[in-house]
């Protein structure tokens, strides 16, 4: 069975990456292949990398409050590039009411801080 490939990324200017790195590590420990893109990715770069790397899921971390512009942009670009069926998920500092809005827009799941990472691993395995 093909190993799942997941993109883990930080979008925008926020550089607090401990959460994203933790997610990357825990996913790798669980046998999932992770492409970690590091800091300061734009939605365009993320979607292009997702295309190039032929990923099964796109994970995005944002703590700066820029999530309501970043996630919708990623979703839109995915549709435009014909990969609108790749699940987009993420976490960071995202208020509960924005989580609702993002999921309505098509983000598959948002994991608030301190989420048990076993849940994220479970989620990714079921993608």
């Amino acid at each position, binding site marked *: 069975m093909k190993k799942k490939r997941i993109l883990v990324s930080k979008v*925008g*200017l926020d550089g607090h990456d401990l959460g994203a790195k*933790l997610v990357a*590590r825990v996913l790798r420990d669980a046998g999932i292949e992770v492409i970690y893109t590091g800091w*300061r990715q734009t939605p365009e770069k993320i979607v292009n990398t997702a295309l190039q790397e032929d990923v099964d899921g796109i994970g995005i971390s944002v*703590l700066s409050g820029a999530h309501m512009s970043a996630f919708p942009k990623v979703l839109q670009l995915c549709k435009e590039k014909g990969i609108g069926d790749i699940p987009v998920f993420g976490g960071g*500092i995202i208020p509960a009411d924005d989580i609702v809005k993002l999921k309505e827009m098509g983000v598959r799941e948002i994991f608030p*801080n301190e989420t048990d990472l076993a849940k994220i691993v479970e989620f990714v395995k079921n993608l």
Partner: protein
Amino acid sequence: MPEEVTQPIKYYSRSAAAYELKEYYTPSDLAKNNFQYEEKLGDPGQYPYTRGAFPDMYRRKPWTIVMYSGYGLPEACNERYKRLLSYGAEGISMAVHLPVQVGIDSDHELSVGEVGRCGVAVDSLRDIEIAFKDIAIEKLATVGMLGNSIGPIAFAFFLALAEKRGLRPEQVHITLQNDVIKEYATRGTHIFPMEPAVRIASDVVRYCAQKNLPNCNPMSICGAHMQTAGTPWEIAFAMCDGMAYIDHIISSGFKIDDFAHLFRLFLSVGSGSIDMFEEVAKARVGRRVWAKIMKERYGAQNPQSIATQLFGFIIAGATAQQPMNNIARIALGAHAAVLAGMVSMHTSCWDEALTLPAEEAVQLAIRTQHVLRHETGSEVGVTDPLGGSYLLEDLTDRIEADVWRNIKTIEDMGGALAAVQKGFYSQQVMAGVYKTQNEVWKGTRGLVGVNLYRKPGEGNPIGKFKIDPDTERIKIEGLKNLRKERNTTKVKETLRIVRETAGSAENLIPPILAAVKEYATIGEICDELKAVYGEYSEGPVYQ
């Protein structure tokens, strides 16, 4: 039935360093560490300054209540700053939005969605003028901004503001963080390659040394951002970063006692952990190690070079779950900071894990410091009141030994810059986070409201605070107008001189100050510096 042998539960200090703790400590613990008062402690005000820089610490001057704050448009920020001061804040550190921190303007393509979000939107001196309208900056105990990669620009903003108000630089207590090295390891607001970045940050220190501005704090070497690596790594990283700046400044022709008194220490006391004794020990080790480095390695003679001060930033491991628990956490963290002898302290607000703080939360954060200041006796009236505690002295010595070992490890790698570039700092930070987070998920590390005392299905509350949704549009409009109103010829001329100076060994502050006064923007000034130094291109990404 075979007898069950229960393993005794072990107790550890709270940081990732996890110092094993005995049931109780006695004078024999001092003896085993060869504790000699004069050598290990000295009185407060005596080398090695473990107990603090002054015998009469808070009696001479209480710690400064600084609030790190800022969001949205400068006008809104001005309103909040006035309110903070009315609640009793004594100093203001501007939280500026991420575009400023990475040297770009609000209308840059990478600023989309970021404008005014986790700090106030600032593009030029005009925004600083608006943010501090009707605020007498000379009456503030401290004023400044984090300004890590943009140290000279941040400093120039406040020099320019002072000048416009007819104030001399000696009258304004400007404080910057300005520790750019750590940005490459963690936090991520770097702009230029590392070596020019060190030169840029050091220019602010050199400027203050040359212009004789001991009222300013141009550089706070930071351990706090690496605190998840564990206490002895945190201190070792800060010290090695400090030595990188110091070595650079000395190589440019300065003597240690010309400038070392301008350095401050920014450790995570009361920030990641509220283990009182480990936090207080951390501060004492910071002071002791700095003093030894100054005296033994650099031959410093001036007591002000050798006895450093600590700045505090109390987050106390705040959680988004059951956020009101954070009120207790922040009070405990602040208490540890006071017992540790911080000279200035920002207390975070209980709702900040959710969003930017609401007004009542900000007031409460200030009141927390007020309660500490006015309602405790021995904490504020006695210097290093925990000094002599068998536990504290044991922890202090154990941490110190580990710090020296860690400093040697970093130096064997070639020093701070080499170690950061190799990814060593971030590896240690990640190792610490991975360890402690696993403990939280396994349940061996209690976190109230997260893995303890939480109902199944319990959600997190929604933070109240939201910025004006029109912020980005209005700021970009304002920037367009600014560009029309200012003297373009003068702006261009001052920017040209910034570029020239960047290519020389001259201090960047005078030309940047000239550009700032003509309302050159942060992005425009940084573009000149990028033309000379290039941009940082990240090394191998986390594997």
